[in-house]
Structures are given as C-alpha cells and as structure tokens.
C-alpha cells in the first residue's frame, strides 16, 4: 500500500558550534490520506525537525539520511525547484507564531494570494475572491476589509486563522502544523483547532500535528507518536496511549501532568531533564531517567516492536505494565512489572 507520507529510518544531523550533532535518529512514521498524526514530545525531542525535514526546511548544512516518500515517490533526490513545487502544491506548514511568519509590511490579501498568483498563475481578482471565501470559512467576518488590513491590525488568534486560510488556499494533501496554538489563549486555541480540523476534514487533507500537549493531541488525532531525544519511542492511538502506555517515558509524561479535575497530592515527577539527541547515551535514550532501567538498556538501542497494534522502542515493553495516571497505580507501587 502506498502511504501519503512515509518517513523511513530518517536521521538528521545539524551543525551547531561548528560540529555535526544528531537531532533525529532512525525516525520512521507514516501518514495516510486524510489522517491526523500527532508528534508529541518535550523541547529538543526532534518533533519540529521531523516536520521541517518533510518540507526540506532544515537549517543550512543539515545532513539527512534515510528516506522520505510522498505518494510513493522519494523526495530525497529533489532539486530546489522540485521542493518549491512540492511546498507550493502538495504540503504546507502552519508555524507557531503567525506574527513571525507573516510579512508585516504586506496586506493580508497580498499574503494570501501570493502563492496563487505566482505559482498557479491565477488572476489576482479571482485569487482575492477565493481568499475572501476561505477567510469566511475560517471564521473571519468582514473578509473583504480584512484583506486590505495589515498583520498588526489583527489579533494573534485572528492572524493564526489567516495562516490556516493561506494553507487551505493552496489545497495541499498534507498540512504540517508546528504548535499552531501554543501562543494562543485557551478559548482561542479551542476555536482555532476546531476550525483547522473541520476545514481539513472537509477537504480530506492529512495532517502532521506537532505539540507538547498530550491532551490536545489526543483530542483529534488518529495516531500519536511520542518522541524523545530524536527517537520515536511509541506510536499508538490516543485511546490506547492514555489507557495503556507502552513506553516508560510515555507513562511518566502522562503521569506528571497536573490534572484539571483532581488535585494530585504530589505529582510523580521524572528526574533529570529531557535530553537532545546528541546528548543521549548509547543504548536506550531514556535510560538515565527510567525507573525500570536494566543492564541491557545501556548495552543496546531497543529495536522497535509491534505490540497490540502500537509501536514501541523499549527492551522491556512486553513485561512492563504501566499506568497513565498517578491514582491508577497507587495500588501497584508505581506500576511495577509483571514478573
């Protein structure tokens, strides 16, 4: 079967402080047509870099190995021109901060129609008509007036909707969204997510959604991939991930969140700090912070295994029984192993 997007054993090295450092290690994930896959992780886990790799938006001198294929065609030998065409027609990115990624001296209308006029040779008036229609679909009233406004005249939530409109306009098959609502208020976030998911679903677009918020990911993803230190450590459905996480990091992350509906006497915290890929020790990247660590964890990198339809990268995934809430494992002494 041909996947819409297939990332296969992708590793990426970037230059920092004049030397190459690993940012992604052996990342494999697929996205099907109209599917929503979330990449979840803490800072430095590689989730943004995974998305950027798909659009070839890595910093200069970045080294990629492995394969990325779109509709069965490898993108690895793309020329710059191919990439431009790819980004203009097949896949598009929504960034976290719309103010930083929308040119402040151009009117909203120019920003929205640029791609249509330049890449699709569409007539400017027709493009503006299209833009106005889409603005209304993303919940912006008085679209004709908005098209003449500048970015500073719009609020952050409004501007992020403009960004979503700009992506919908080019009708890509894949949307990459990098923390698109992190900078927004919660009520605005709910609004923007609803619009994004609604419009995406209507057009049968797939989405790779990047977030640090497990609950947000769970709310509308088909699958969630958890990243740590440049690796994907677990891929699962939201329901399964929350009910029975397979990787100790996923479980620890779920348990350390403060809950909205009940106060936890003391949050079960993960000791240490999240590591970047280049800092990770040989073997399992999570070994230093893992309560279930054994000798084999430092000896070899755990292979990915398939358990109940989920993918996990942990030597002990088969024997561990992990809980996702602090209260759930109160009776089991912190989720001990079955043995």
């Amino acid at each position: 079967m041909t996947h819409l997007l297939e990332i296969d054993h992708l590793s990426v090295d970037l230059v920092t402080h004049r030397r190459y450092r690993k940012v992604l290690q052996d990342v494999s994930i697929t996205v099907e047509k109209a599917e929503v896959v979330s990449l979840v992780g803490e800072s430095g886990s590689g989730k943004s870099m995974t998305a950027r790799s798909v659009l070839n938006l890595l910093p200069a001198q970045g080294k990629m190995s492995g394969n990325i294929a779109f509709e069965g065609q490898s993108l690895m030998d793309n020329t710059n021109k191919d990439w431009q065409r790819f980004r203009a027609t097949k896949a598009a990115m929504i960034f976290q901060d719309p103010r930083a990624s929308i040119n402040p001296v151009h009117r909203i209308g120019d920003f929205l129609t640029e791609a249509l006029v330049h890449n699709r040779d569409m007539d400017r008036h027709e493009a503006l008509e299209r833009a106005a229609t889409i603005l209304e679909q993303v919940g912006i009233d008085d679209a004709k007036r908005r098209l003449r406004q500048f970015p500073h005249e719009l609020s952050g939530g409004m501007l992020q909707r403009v960004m979503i409109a700009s992506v919908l306009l080019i009708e890509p098959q894949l949307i990459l969204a990098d923390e698109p609502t992190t900078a927004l208020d919660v009520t605005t976030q709910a609004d923007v997510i609803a619009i994004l998911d609604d419009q995406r679903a209507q057009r049968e677009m797939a989405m790779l959604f990047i977030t640090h918020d497990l609950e947000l990911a769970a709310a509308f993803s088909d699958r969630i991939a958890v990243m740590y230190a440049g690796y994907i450590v677990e891929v699962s459905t939201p329901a399964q991930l929350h009910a029975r996480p397979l990787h100790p990091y996923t479980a620890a992350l779920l348990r350390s969140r403060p809950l909205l509906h009940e106060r936890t006497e003391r949050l079960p915290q993960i000791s240490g700090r999240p590591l970047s890929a280049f800092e990770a020790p040989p073997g399992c990247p999570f070994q230093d912070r893992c309560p279930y660590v054994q000798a084999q964890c430092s000896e070899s990198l755990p292979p990915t295994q398939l358990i109940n339809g989920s993918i996990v990268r942990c030597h002990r995934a088969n024997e561990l029984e992990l809980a996702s809430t602090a209260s759930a494992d109160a009776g089991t002494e912190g989720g001990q192993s079955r043995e």
Partner: protein
Amino acid sequence: MSDSTPSVPAAQKSRHLDGLAVEVKGLRKVFRVSGGSGGRRHHLFVAVEDASFSLEQGHSLGIVGESGSGKTTIARMLVGIEPASGGTIIVAGRDRSASTKRTAERRRRGSEMQIVFQDPYTSLDPRQSINGCINEVLKLHLTMTESERRQRIIELLDQVGLTERQGLVLPKNLSGGQRQRVAIARALAAEPAVLVLDEAVSALDVSIQAQIINLLNDIRERTNMAFIFISHNLAVVRQVTDQTLVLKKGVVVEQGATEKILDAPEDDYTKLLLASVPEPGWKPRRVSVD
C-alpha cells in the same frame, strides 16, 4: 531533586506578621493610550477594575485569565513595578498603595514580596554567576557575614534542587528549568512573606513543570510563605492554589476556593475557560470570535 529538608532559618517564619499576608481593596489601573479613535490624542484604557482579595500566610491564591485580562498588571502593581491608579495594597501589614522613590522603603518592600517571571532566559543577568546573583540579594536584604551567606546560598540551591557546582556557572550553562529554579532561589533568598509567580511554570517542559510545582508546594509547606500564582493553566492552578480569582478584561468575574471554582463554576466565562481545556474526550468547539 534532593529529598533532604534544609533547615529554614527561624527568621523566615517569624519575620513577618501573622495573619494576612496580602490585602488588596478596590485595586484599579488605568492606562493612558496615545492615538486611538475619534481624533482624540489619548484615550483611557481600564486594565484592572476594582479588584479586591486577601491572602493569609501560608496560603496560595491563583489569578487566572487570558491575555489582556489584567493578571500581569495586578502582579506588577503588587510588587511596585507599576503604580496603582486607585485602591489599597497592604502586604505583610504595611500599606504600599503609593509608589515610593525612597531606597530604604523600596528595599523593605522587596524583602516583603518577591516575584518570579515567566521567562527564565531574560530574568537573569547573563554575566553574573548563579552564586553571585543570589549573594547580591542576601547582601541587600539580610545582615549576614560572608561565610553565613556562602552557607545560605548552598542551602537555597539545594532547596531548589541545584548543586553547589551549578552555583558557579553562568545562566547560559543551565537549562530553562534549571534557570527557573535559580529565579525561584533568588526570590526565596530575600525571605519574602509573599512570593508572586507570574506564569512561572508556563514555558517549561511537562516533566520539568512537575518538578517545579512539587518544589513550590514543598516550600509553601516548610516556610509558611504565601503565594500569588498567576497562570492561564487551570490544571496547574488546581495543583498549587487554595483560592482562585478569575479575571476577564480587567474585571473579577468569580473568586473563591479553587476547588469550588474549578468543580462548580458559576460564571459563564469560568465555564468557557474550563470547557476550552483539552482533556480526554474533549472535542474542540468553535467558541468565540475575538
């Protein structure tokens, strides 16, 4: 993080009066905004309207709201960065409603109330070592010999889960979570009666956030310090506060026990905030158009 319980100096518990740590009545802030509509040069913008609350020693008050709600303006008025346009602020039994230029008075206010800001990257001096930054506060607010100060710095670092060695480095050598702990240690160094935390855990990774939340709860239990916790994150507010005040566009729409507000909110805006938090089973809804 260290499990040891460093001794809290007796002074820290008794330096300030028992009873109310903070009492705020009718607090108001009006900004004069230049430009604006109607051809006028200026117009007035009310950022905070008639906010009143009180906070007992050892308790913790959450101030929640979205951007533009006035929560940070309240924090800035409390610590004296921003003068209030009206109302009274009493901290540790002393009125600080009027701003002051007198050094001694400003220093005293600093010793009564400290603040930790959201961004640990911009709130520390990049050229000052961690030890130096805490030492400065100890020198300013307390009478201690040099060796007492050295001892106290080690205690404070330990209290926030940092090692002696980490005290020697510059902020750039620490991660975001570690820097935020330094900011907390620096605030604790002044032994304030009240600690104001303005979105102090918002920018942190989930696993680090849990460490800082536990740390704050430990400190409150050990020291009887009062917290004012400003946040947009209701789950965090549930975890660290016993009283909560909900602000919308400068107006207090609801206040009371945190549990009551989060479990049985009365105001529509509080309900909207709660309904907007993603959680299992949450479906995003189009709720508002700003």
